[in-house]
């Protein structure tokens, strides 16, 4: 059974159809990339999956169970973790506390287990040295890492990454990709929206192309990247 399944999901803001009859399945442990020009409805799709937005029609299934009416909190507890495109740290809390709160709530960990669990994630994401620093004062790379680390602390089975490599230098990007690949290798399924294609394609197996809210194409990376239609719409709009 698919871990996450979208079935004919649609969402409109007024007359604008931002998500138009989108369906796809994500298998347990799979890594799936989502690409498409700006305004194609990629982040909206994430908001529909996490519950920040409710679909006008269609269903979102997690383990075959319809979660379309569940709250953001319930979906987080059910295993959907998410990193925001623009980092949203708890600015007055320390880096460690940002993870601790996620582990205690979304991750459902007890007070005794949470600290070591959080430190383990901080070490793996290269943030251990900054554990007691206030999260509000971090530089961009650390903020991106914190988004990833905090989402990990909720113990997700599917991790939604929203343009996490955007704005990083090549060297920073390589590091982050290595971390994401390690997370994926441990069996966490990933859905990743990204414009930095070389980063994305080094992790995911399949790509979804969105355009004007519609699902234009689904397929393995090579097929999608070689498609003339995608090159025209996606790369044409970007270059």
């Amino acid at each position, binding site marked *: 059974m698919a871990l996450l399944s979208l079935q004919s999901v649609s969402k409109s803001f007024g007359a604008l159809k931002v998500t138009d009859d989108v369906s796809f399945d994500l298998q347990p442990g799979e890594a799936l990339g989502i690409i498409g020009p700006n305004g194609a409805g990629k982040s909206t799709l994430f908001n529909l999956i996490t519950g*920040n937005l409710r679909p006008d029609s269609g269903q979102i299934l997690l383990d075959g169970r319809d979660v379309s009416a569940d709250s953001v909190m319930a979906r987080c507890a059910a295993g959907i973790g998410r990193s925001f495109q623009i980092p949203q740290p708890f600015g007055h809390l320390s880096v460690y*506390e940002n993870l601790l*709160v*996620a582990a205690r709530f*979304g991750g*459902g960990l007890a007070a005794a287990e949470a600290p070591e669990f959080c430190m383990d994630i901080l070490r793996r994401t290269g943030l*251990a040295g900054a554990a007691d620093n206030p999260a509000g004062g971090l530089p961009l790379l650390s903020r991106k890492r914190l988004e990833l680390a905090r989402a990990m602390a909720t113990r997700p089975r599917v991790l939604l990454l929203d343009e996490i490599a955007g704005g990083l230098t090549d060297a920073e990007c390589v590091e982050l990709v290595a971390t994401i690949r390690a997370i994926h290798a441990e069996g966490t399924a990933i859905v990743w929206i990204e414009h930095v294609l070389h980063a994305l394609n080094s992790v995911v197996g399949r790509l979804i192309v969105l355009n004007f809210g519609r699902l234009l194409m689904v397929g393995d990376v090579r097929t999608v990247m070689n498609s003339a239609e995608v090159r025209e719409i996606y790369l044409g709009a970007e270059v």
Partner: protein
Amino acid sequence: MMKTTCPAYRPLALAILAAAALAAVPLIGPRAVVQDLFGILCLLVLALNWNMLAGFAGLVSVGQQAFVGIGAYTMFAAVILFGLDPLAGVLLGGLVAMALAVPVACFVFRLNGAYFAIGTWVAAEIARLGLGQWKALGGGTGTSLPKGTTRDMLGVGPVKEWLGVSSAAASDIVLYWLALGLVLATLGVSWAFLRSRTGLGLQAIRDNAMAARSVGIDPVRLKALVFLLAAFGTGLCGGLLFIQITRITPDAAFSLLDWTAFVLFVVVIGGIGTLPGPIVGVVVFYALERLLSDYGSAYLIVLGLFGIAVMLFARRGLWGSLSGRTGLELLPLGHRAPAAAIRP
């Protein structure tokens, strides 16, 4: 920015010392001072509760007088209608205030920001007008506690015997100690609460509500919990206050000025969203009140100007600014990373 945190025992030792000194006041101080300090301690209880609401849960209520009034009226009803000890009435007052906070929350939690504030005020006015209809407790003109109520109150007899004072003085002393106990309990519970999982969640919500939801924190649930607890503390305080005042009217029990505006002033000048803030605020308030007590209503004008000055020039309040500038932290709320784990 580095933060210097005192070793845990030092603020604790300081707090015990201060509490002991305050507890000893009735043994040496004149009765007028005890009565004055009782009022101030009650104001501090209200301030600590309001600070939890506005400073930590982001619930800027201007209707907390509702719970003072409900607590006070419950205490009166317990004494006059059911013949209970006033202190049992105080406890009931807290419980009734918390119970009535449930329907109030159902109404005001649909509102946000300024609308929430107005909603709480409306709820307090409804409570005031409603209790003004309660004929058994004097309706709009109010009523007094029966003569001898405080004399027979729990604890007054032993204190009278022990210290060799009049019944009236002994009841003042009992109330004073209870108010001090309530301050310490409120402070202790607030600190433990804010250091708990729930408190950490509350601070995350304060920083970023959207991100908080996405890591599984339910903002409405946590805020409702704080609202109920604050109603309990505020209701207890209302009952206690009106044992000493001995007379109740709807206007006095639901006074916006006495039970919310002054409280707001204390928290804002002291440092909203910090635990020591209300303590600093109440000390400044008391000092100003003593200094300016001979000047009548000019006192309120100076108080207002001082409040505005703090809001303009020390926006985090006196304690907040001091703490921000020196890095000093009493009653720290942070969770430090396990030390051994930081080393690679």
